[in-house]
Protein backbone atom coordinates (compact mmCIF):
# COMPACT_ATOMS: atom_id res chain seq x y z
CA UNK A 1 0.00 0.00 0.00
CA UNK A 2 2.83 2.33 0.76
CA UNK A 3 3.99 1.97 -2.81
CA UNK A 4 0.72 3.46 -4.00
CA UNK A 5 1.56 6.68 -2.26
CA UNK A 6 5.19 7.10 -3.07
CA UNK A 7 5.68 5.01 -6.14
CA UNK A 8 3.16 6.80 -8.33
CA UNK A 9 4.88 10.13 -7.95
CA UNK A 10 8.13 10.56 -9.73
CA UNK A 11 10.34 12.97 -7.88
CA UNK A 12 13.91 13.62 -8.84
CA UNK A 13 15.29 13.12 -5.36
CA UNK A 14 18.80 13.96 -6.46
CA UNK A 15 17.73 17.51 -7.34
CA UNK A 16 16.13 17.87 -3.91
CA UNK A 17 19.33 16.55 -2.37
CA UNK A 18 21.34 19.11 -4.35
CA UNK A 19 19.07 21.94 -3.20
CA UNK A 20 19.45 20.83 0.42
CA UNK A 21 23.23 20.75 0.09
CA UNK A 22 23.19 24.21 -1.47
CA UNK A 23 21.05 25.52 1.38
CA UNK A 24 23.46 24.03 3.93
CA UNK A 25 26.35 25.69 2.13
CA UNK A 26 24.47 29.01 2.26
CA UNK A 27 24.06 28.66 6.03
CA UNK A 28 27.80 28.14 6.43
CA UNK A 29 28.52 31.10 4.14
CA UNK A 30 26.29 33.32 6.30
CA UNK A 31 28.41 32.31 9.27
CA UNK A 32 31.73 32.79 7.49
CA UNK A 33 30.95 36.30 6.19
CA UNK A 34 30.20 37.36 9.79
CA UNK A 35 27.05 39.40 9.36
CA UNK A 36 27.16 42.08 12.05
CA UNK A 37 23.41 42.57 12.36
CA UNK A 38 22.21 39.64 14.46
CA UNK A 39 18.59 40.03 13.39
CA UNK A 40 19.54 39.82 9.73
CA UNK A 41 21.65 36.74 10.46
CA UNK A 42 18.77 35.07 12.32
CA UNK A 43 16.33 35.81 9.50
CA UNK A 44 18.71 34.48 6.87
CA UNK A 45 19.79 31.24 8.53
CA UNK A 46 16.35 30.42 9.91
CA UNK A 47 14.84 31.20 6.52
CA UNK A 48 17.25 28.71 4.97
CA UNK A 49 16.42 26.17 7.70
CA UNK A 50 12.67 26.53 7.09
CA UNK A 51 13.24 26.13 3.35
CA UNK A 52 15.27 22.96 3.94
CA UNK A 53 12.63 21.60 6.31
CA UNK A 54 9.90 22.26 3.75
CA UNK A 55 11.84 20.42 1.07
CA UNK A 56 12.39 17.42 3.33
CA UNK A 57 8.76 17.31 4.44
CA UNK A 58 7.32 17.94 1.00
CA UNK A 59 9.41 15.51 -1.04
CA UNK A 60 11.37 13.14 1.20
CA UNK A 61 8.42 12.61 3.55
CA UNK A 62 5.97 12.74 0.62
CA UNK A 63 3.61 15.17 2.34
CA UNK A 64 3.03 16.81 -1.04
CA UNK A 65 1.28 13.65 -2.15
CA UNK A 66 -0.65 12.88 1.01
CA UNK A 67 -4.29 13.74 1.63
CA UNK A 68 -5.68 16.43 3.89
CA UNK A 69 -5.38 14.13 6.89
CA UNK A 70 -1.86 15.51 7.28
CA UNK A 71 -3.29 18.88 8.32
CA UNK A 72 -5.76 17.32 10.74
CA UNK A 73 -3.00 15.30 12.34
CA UNK A 74 -0.16 17.80 12.38
CA UNK A 75 -1.82 21.20 12.85
CA UNK A 76 -3.06 20.61 16.43
CA UNK A 77 0.29 19.06 17.35
CA UNK A 78 2.22 22.05 16.10
CA UNK A 79 -0.15 24.47 17.83
CA UNK A 80 0.10 22.63 21.16
CA UNK A 81 3.89 22.37 20.83
CA UNK A 82 4.08 26.14 21.06
CA UNK A 83 2.46 26.03 24.52
CA UNK A 84 5.60 25.64 26.61
CA UNK A 85 7.71 28.30 24.85
CA UNK A 86 4.85 30.79 24.97
CA UNK A 87 4.21 30.03 28.64
CA UNK A 88 7.87 30.60 29.51
CA UNK A 89 8.34 33.69 27.39
CA UNK A 90 6.93 36.40 29.73
CA UNK A 91 8.89 35.36 32.82
CA UNK A 92 12.05 33.85 31.39
CA UNK A 93 12.43 35.33 27.94
CA UNK A 94 11.18 38.88 28.37
CA UNK A 95 11.83 39.91 31.94
CA UNK A 96 9.37 42.40 33.37
CA UNK A 97 11.55 42.81 36.43
CA UNK A 98 15.14 43.82 37.11
CA UNK A 99 17.46 40.92 36.66
CA UNK A 100 19.85 40.22 39.51
CA UNK A 101 21.70 36.99 38.86
CA UNK A 102 25.30 35.90 39.55
CA UNK A 103 26.11 36.03 35.84
CA UNK A 104 25.61 39.80 35.90
CA UNK A 105 28.20 40.26 38.65
CA UNK A 106 31.46 40.60 36.79
CA UNK A 107 33.57 41.48 39.82
CA UNK A 108 34.78 39.37 42.68
CA UNK A 109 32.69 39.80 45.79
CA UNK A 110 32.71 38.12 49.15
CA UNK A 111 35.60 35.84 48.44
CA UNK A 112 36.21 33.58 51.36
CA UNK A 113 32.63 33.00 52.38
CA UNK A 114 32.87 29.65 50.71
CA UNK A 115 35.05 28.00 53.32
CA UNK A 116 34.11 24.40 52.76
CA UNK A 117 37.79 23.42 52.69
CA UNK A 118 39.12 26.01 55.09
CA UNK A 119 40.26 23.41 57.57
CA UNK A 120 42.30 21.75 54.87
CA UNK A 121 44.94 24.46 54.96
CA UNK A 122 45.13 24.22 58.71
CA UNK A 123 43.34 27.41 59.64
CA UNK A 124 39.93 28.27 60.93
CA UNK A 125 37.50 30.13 58.68
CA UNK A 126 37.72 33.86 58.89
CA UNK A 127 35.33 36.63 58.17
CA UNK A 128 35.99 37.65 54.62
CA UNK A 129 36.73 41.09 53.46
CA UNK A 130 34.22 42.52 51.06
CA UNK A 131 34.85 44.54 47.99
CA UNK A 132 33.14 47.81 47.47
Amino acid at each position, binding site marked *: MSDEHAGHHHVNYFIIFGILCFCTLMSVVFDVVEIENKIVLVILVMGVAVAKALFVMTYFMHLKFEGNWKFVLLAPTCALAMGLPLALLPDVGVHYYTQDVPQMHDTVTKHGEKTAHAE*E*VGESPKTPEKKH
Partner: protein
Amino acid sequence: MGLPIPNSKLGMWLFLGTEIMFFTAFIGAYLVLRIGSPGWPDDPKDTHIHVWAGGLNTFVLITSSFFVVVAHEAMGVKNFKKAWNFLGFTFLLSCGFLGIKSYEYYGKISHDILPSHIAENDEQAINKVTDEMEDVVKAEMTRHGLKGTALEDKRTALQAAIGEQKGETLLQLHALDAFDGKFVKLKRHTRENVSLSIAAVDGKFDRTALPAGARLPSLTLHEVEVYVADQKNDPQLKPLMSSVHNPHPIPYGNLFASTYFLMTGFHALHVVIGMILFGMVLMQGSKLDSGWSDWVENSGLYWHFVDLVWIFLFPLLYII
Protein backbone atom coordinates in the same frame (compact mmCIF):
# COMPACT_ATOMS: atom_id res chain seq x y z
CA MET B 1 -14.16 4.29 6.41
CA GLY B 2 -10.73 5.35 7.51
CA LEU B 3 -7.67 7.20 6.40
CA PRO B 4 -6.23 6.05 3.06
CA ILE B 5 -2.93 4.99 4.60
CA PRO B 6 -1.72 1.84 6.34
CA ASN B 7 -2.22 1.64 10.08
CA SER B 8 1.54 1.41 10.57
CA LYS B 9 2.05 4.65 8.71
CA LEU B 10 -0.72 6.36 10.68
CA GLY B 11 0.94 5.10 13.84
CA MET B 12 4.29 6.49 12.75
CA TRP B 13 2.78 9.89 11.97
CA LEU B 14 1.02 9.99 15.33
CA PHE B 15 4.33 9.12 16.97
CA LEU B 16 6.05 11.85 14.97
CA GLY B 17 3.38 14.23 16.26
CA THR B 18 4.51 13.49 19.82
CA GLU B 19 8.10 13.90 18.69
CA ILE B 20 7.29 17.34 17.28
CA MET B 21 6.01 18.36 20.72
CA PHE B 22 9.02 16.76 22.42
CA PHE B 23 11.65 18.60 20.42
CA THR B 24 9.66 21.84 20.20
CA ALA B 25 9.65 21.91 23.98
CA PHE B 26 13.46 21.64 24.04
CA ILE B 27 14.11 24.04 21.21
CA GLY B 28 11.46 26.48 22.44
CA ALA B 29 12.84 26.43 25.98
CA TYR B 30 16.33 27.00 24.57
CA LEU B 31 15.14 29.99 22.56
CA VAL B 32 13.30 31.50 25.51
CA LEU B 33 16.28 31.02 27.84
CA ARG B 34 18.62 32.50 25.27
CA ILE B 35 16.40 35.52 24.64
CA GLY B 36 16.20 36.11 28.38
CA SER B 37 19.95 35.81 29.01
CA PRO B 38 21.91 38.88 27.92
CA GLY B 39 25.48 37.89 27.11
CA TRP B 40 24.63 34.30 26.14
CA PRO B 41 27.89 32.61 25.06
CA ASP B 42 28.18 32.53 21.28
CA ASP B 43 31.93 32.86 20.86
CA PRO B 44 33.45 29.56 19.65
CA LYS B 45 36.37 30.20 22.01
CA ASP B 46 33.91 29.89 24.89
CA THR B 47 31.57 27.23 23.59
CA HIS B 48 34.02 25.15 21.54
CA ILE B 49 31.36 24.92 18.85
CA HIS B 50 32.79 24.17 15.42
CA VAL B 51 30.66 25.26 12.47
CA TRP B 52 32.54 22.88 10.17
CA ALA B 53 31.54 19.94 12.38
CA GLY B 54 27.88 20.98 12.46
CA GLY B 55 27.89 21.67 8.73
CA LEU B 56 29.52 18.33 7.99
CA ASN B 57 26.98 16.53 10.16
CA THR B 58 24.18 18.36 8.35
CA PHE B 59 25.57 17.14 5.06
CA VAL B 60 25.87 13.61 6.44
CA LEU B 61 22.24 13.56 7.59
CA ILE B 62 20.92 15.09 4.36
CA THR B 63 22.85 12.51 2.35
CA SER B 64 21.50 9.72 4.54
CA SER B 65 17.96 11.05 4.07
CA PHE B 66 18.52 11.00 0.32
CA PHE B 67 19.77 7.40 0.52
CA VAL B 68 16.69 6.41 2.53
CA VAL B 69 14.28 7.71 -0.12
CA VAL B 70 16.32 5.94 -2.79
CA ALA B 71 16.09 2.74 -0.75
CA HIS B 72 12.35 3.21 -0.30
CA GLU B 73 11.94 3.77 -4.02
CA ALA B 74 13.99 0.62 -4.72
CA MET B 75 11.72 -1.35 -2.38
CA GLY B 76 8.75 -0.09 -4.42
CA VAL B 77 10.17 -1.55 -7.64
CA LYS B 78 11.28 -4.71 -5.80
CA ASN B 79 14.96 -4.01 -6.29
CA PHE B 80 15.79 -5.29 -2.83
CA LYS B 81 19.52 -5.52 -3.39
CA LYS B 82 19.68 -1.80 -4.19
CA ALA B 83 17.45 -1.01 -1.22
CA TRP B 84 19.71 -3.04 1.09
CA ASN B 85 22.81 -1.30 -0.23
CA PHE B 86 21.42 2.20 0.27
CA LEU B 87 20.18 1.37 3.74
CA GLY B 88 23.69 0.10 4.43
CA PHE B 89 25.11 3.42 3.27
CA THR B 90 22.61 5.18 5.53
CA PHE B 91 23.74 3.07 8.45
CA LEU B 92 27.38 3.94 7.77
CA LEU B 93 26.55 7.63 7.49
CA SER B 94 24.72 7.53 10.80
CA CYS B 95 27.88 5.99 12.32
CA GLY B 96 29.79 8.90 10.81
CA PHE B 97 27.34 11.37 12.31
CA LEU B 98 27.82 9.88 15.78
CA GLY B 99 31.59 9.86 15.27
CA ILE B 100 31.65 13.59 14.53
CA LYS B 101 29.28 14.21 17.43
CA SER B 102 31.57 12.23 19.72
CA TYR B 103 34.52 14.34 18.61
CA GLU B 104 32.55 17.47 19.48
CA TYR B 105 31.53 16.05 22.84
CA TYR B 106 35.13 15.11 23.58
CA GLY B 107 36.20 18.71 22.93
CA LYS B 108 33.60 20.04 25.35
CA ILE B 109 34.33 17.47 28.02
CA SER B 110 38.08 18.12 27.84
CA HIS B 111 37.45 21.85 28.29
CA ASP B 112 34.93 21.14 31.05
CA ILE B 113 32.08 22.71 29.09
CA LEU B 114 29.57 20.68 31.05
CA PRO B 115 26.37 21.57 32.92
CA SER B 116 27.07 22.87 36.43
CA HIS B 117 30.85 22.78 35.82
CA ILE B 118 31.25 26.23 34.30
CA ALA B 119 32.26 29.31 36.28
CA GLU B 120 29.98 32.18 35.30
CA ASN B 121 31.77 35.09 36.96
CA ASP B 122 35.23 35.94 38.31
CA GLU B 123 34.52 34.67 41.81
CA GLN B 124 33.30 31.31 40.58
CA ALA B 125 36.27 31.01 38.21
CA ILE B 126 38.76 31.57 41.03
CA ASN B 127 36.95 29.17 43.32
CA LYS B 128 36.85 26.56 40.57
CA VAL B 129 40.62 26.68 40.03
CA THR B 130 41.18 26.41 43.76
CA ASP B 131 38.85 23.43 44.01
CA GLU B 132 40.46 21.70 41.05
CA MET B 133 43.93 22.13 42.53
CA GLU B 134 42.64 20.72 45.79
CA ASP B 135 41.17 17.72 43.97
CA VAL B 136 44.59 17.07 42.40
CA VAL B 137 46.33 17.29 45.78
CA LYS B 138 43.90 14.83 47.34
CA ALA B 139 44.01 12.43 44.40
CA GLU B 140 47.81 12.44 44.25
CA MET B 141 48.17 11.94 47.99
CA THR B 142 45.82 8.98 47.78
CA ARG B 143 47.69 7.62 44.76
CA HIS B 144 50.95 7.70 46.70
CA GLY B 145 49.31 5.86 49.59
CA LEU B 146 49.80 8.66 52.10
CA LYS B 147 47.89 7.78 55.24
CA GLY B 148 45.57 10.04 57.18
CA THR B 149 41.97 11.14 57.02
CA ALA B 150 42.53 14.90 57.11
CA LEU B 151 44.64 16.63 54.50
CA GLU B 152 46.98 17.87 57.23
CA ASP B 153 47.73 14.28 58.31
CA LYS B 154 48.53 13.38 54.73
CA ARG B 155 50.86 16.35 54.49
CA THR B 156 52.76 15.01 57.49
CA ALA B 157 52.91 11.60 55.82
CA LEU B 158 54.13 13.28 52.64
CA GLN B 159 57.07 14.86 54.44
CA ALA B 160 57.92 11.50 56.01
CA ALA B 161 57.74 9.78 52.62
CA ILE B 162 60.03 12.37 51.08
CA GLY B 163 62.65 11.39 53.66
CA GLU B 164 62.29 7.71 52.82
CA GLN B 165 61.75 7.45 49.06
CA LYS B 166 64.31 7.57 46.28
CA GLY B 167 64.47 7.93 42.53
CA GLU B 168 61.41 8.71 40.43
CA THR B 169 59.01 8.39 43.34
CA LEU B 170 60.99 10.97 45.30
CA LEU B 171 60.81 13.37 42.34
CA GLN B 172 57.04 12.87 42.18
CA LEU B 173 56.69 13.48 45.91
CA HIS B 174 58.74 16.66 45.66
CA ALA B 175 56.52 17.82 42.80
CA LEU B 176 53.42 17.04 44.85
CA ASP B 177 54.83 18.93 47.81
CA ALA B 178 55.56 21.95 45.62
CA PHE B 179 52.12 21.73 44.02
CA ASP B 180 50.48 21.53 47.44
CA GLY B 181 52.34 24.69 48.42
CA LYS B 182 50.97 26.49 45.39
CA PHE B 183 47.47 25.24 46.23
CA VAL B 184 47.71 26.35 49.86
CA LYS B 185 48.85 29.80 48.79
CA LEU B 186 46.00 30.21 46.32
CA LYS B 187 43.49 28.83 48.80
CA ARG B 188 44.59 31.26 51.46
CA HIS B 189 44.37 34.27 49.15
CA THR B 190 41.07 33.11 47.73
CA ARG B 191 39.52 32.60 51.13
CA GLU B 192 40.54 35.98 52.45
CA ASN B 193 40.22 37.79 49.12
CA VAL B 194 43.74 39.16 49.29
CA SER B 195 45.88 39.90 46.26
CA LEU B 196 48.59 37.36 45.43
CA SER B 197 51.06 40.25 45.54
CA ILE B 198 50.69 40.30 49.33
CA ALA B 199 52.70 37.59 51.01
CA ALA B 200 51.37 35.71 54.02
CA VAL B 201 53.73 35.19 56.95
CA ASP B 202 53.11 31.97 58.85
CA GLY B 203 49.79 31.69 57.09
CA LYS B 204 48.58 35.12 58.13
CA PHE B 205 48.34 38.48 56.44
CA ASP B 206 49.74 41.43 58.32
CA ARG B 207 47.05 44.07 58.60
CA THR B 208 48.52 45.88 61.57
CA ALA B 209 50.07 48.65 59.47
CA LEU B 210 46.84 49.41 57.64
CA PRO B 211 45.03 52.65 58.43
CA ALA B 212 41.64 52.28 60.05
CA GLY B 213 39.04 51.10 57.59
CA ALA B 214 41.62 50.24 54.95
CA ARG B 215 41.99 46.74 53.56
CA LEU B 216 44.54 44.76 51.67
CA PRO B 217 44.19 44.79 47.88
CA SER B 218 41.76 42.18 46.59
CA LEU B 219 42.50 39.08 44.58
CA THR B 220 41.73 39.51 40.90
CA LEU B 221 40.95 37.06 38.14
CA HIS B 222 43.90 38.30 36.13
CA GLU B 223 46.26 37.48 39.00
CA VAL B 224 44.90 33.96 39.20
CA GLU B 225 45.14 33.54 35.43
CA VAL B 226 48.83 34.46 35.56
CA TYR B 227 49.35 32.25 38.61
CA VAL B 228 47.80 29.23 36.90
CA ALA B 229 49.75 29.90 33.69
CA ASP B 230 52.98 30.04 35.68
CA GLN B 231 52.30 26.66 37.28
CA LYS B 232 51.35 25.15 33.91
CA ASN B 233 54.65 26.36 32.48
CA ASP B 234 56.66 24.98 35.38
CA PRO B 235 58.21 21.68 34.18
CA GLN B 236 57.93 20.19 37.66
CA LEU B 237 54.26 21.05 38.12
CA LYS B 238 53.07 20.74 34.52
CA PRO B 239 51.92 17.10 34.80
CA LEU B 240 49.91 17.87 37.93
CA MET B 241 48.35 20.97 36.36
CA SER B 242 47.05 19.02 33.36
CA SER B 243 43.61 18.52 34.92
CA VAL B 244 43.38 22.11 36.19
CA HIS B 245 41.50 24.32 33.75
CA ASN B 246 42.37 27.92 33.05
CA PRO B 247 40.07 30.24 34.98
CA HIS B 248 37.66 31.44 32.34
CA PRO B 249 34.23 32.68 33.40
CA ILE B 250 31.47 32.17 30.83
CA PRO B 251 28.25 33.96 31.77
CA TYR B 252 25.27 31.62 31.18
CA GLY B 253 27.72 28.87 30.24
CA ASN B 254 25.87 26.29 32.33
CA LEU B 255 22.54 27.06 30.70
CA PHE B 256 24.25 26.84 27.34
CA ALA B 257 25.83 23.47 28.20
CA SER B 258 22.58 22.09 29.62
CA THR B 259 20.52 23.01 26.58
CA TYR B 260 23.27 21.98 24.16
CA PHE B 261 23.67 18.51 25.64
CA LEU B 262 19.92 18.10 26.15
CA MET B 263 19.07 18.82 22.53
CA THR B 264 22.03 17.17 20.83
CA GLY B 265 21.97 14.25 23.26
CA PHE B 266 18.34 13.39 22.62
CA HIS B 267 18.92 13.91 18.91
CA ALA B 268 21.86 11.49 19.01
CA LEU B 269 19.65 9.00 20.87
CA HIS B 270 17.15 9.24 18.02
CA VAL B 271 19.97 8.59 15.56
CA VAL B 272 20.87 5.42 17.48
CA ILE B 273 17.24 4.27 17.41
CA GLY B 274 17.16 4.94 13.67
CA MET B 275 20.28 2.81 13.28
CA ILE B 276 18.52 -0.02 15.11
CA LEU B 277 15.50 0.28 12.78
CA PHE B 278 17.74 0.15 9.70
CA GLY B 279 19.94 -2.52 11.27
CA MET B 280 16.93 -4.84 11.55
CA VAL B 281 16.34 -4.49 7.81
CA LEU B 282 20.01 -4.99 7.03
CA MET B 283 20.02 -8.18 9.10
CA GLN B 284 17.59 -9.69 6.59
CA GLY B 285 20.38 -9.70 4.02
CA SER B 286 19.31 -11.51 0.86
CA LYS B 287 15.98 -12.41 2.51
CA LEU B 288 14.80 -8.82 2.26
CA ASP B 289 11.47 -8.77 0.43
CA SER B 290 8.36 -6.66 -0.12
CA GLY B 291 7.08 -7.60 3.33
CA TRP B 292 9.54 -5.03 4.67
CA SER B 293 8.30 -2.16 2.47
CA ASP B 294 6.13 -0.58 5.14
CA TRP B 295 8.93 -0.97 7.67
CA VAL B 296 11.37 0.79 5.37
CA GLU B 297 8.88 3.56 4.61
CA ASN B 298 8.06 4.17 8.26
CA SER B 299 11.71 3.99 9.32
CA GLY B 300 12.40 6.45 6.53
CA LEU B 301 9.74 8.86 7.85
CA TYR B 302 11.34 8.61 11.28
CA TRP B 303 14.80 9.22 9.80
CA HIS B 304 13.62 12.27 7.86
CA PHE B 305 12.21 13.66 11.09
CA VAL B 306 15.60 13.17 12.78
CA ASP B 307 17.08 15.06 9.83
CA LEU B 308 14.45 17.82 10.26
CA VAL B 309 15.36 18.32 13.91
CA TRP B 310 19.03 18.66 13.00
CA ILE B 311 18.17 21.14 10.24
CA PHE B 312 16.96 23.48 12.99
CA LEU B 313 19.59 22.60 15.60
CA PHE B 314 22.41 23.43 13.22
CA PRO B 315 21.66 27.14 12.75
CA LEU B 316 20.42 27.60 16.31
CA LEU B 317 23.45 26.04 18.01
CA TYR B 318 26.25 26.51 15.52
CA ILE B 319 25.60 29.75 13.64
CA ILE B 320 23.39 32.20 15.50
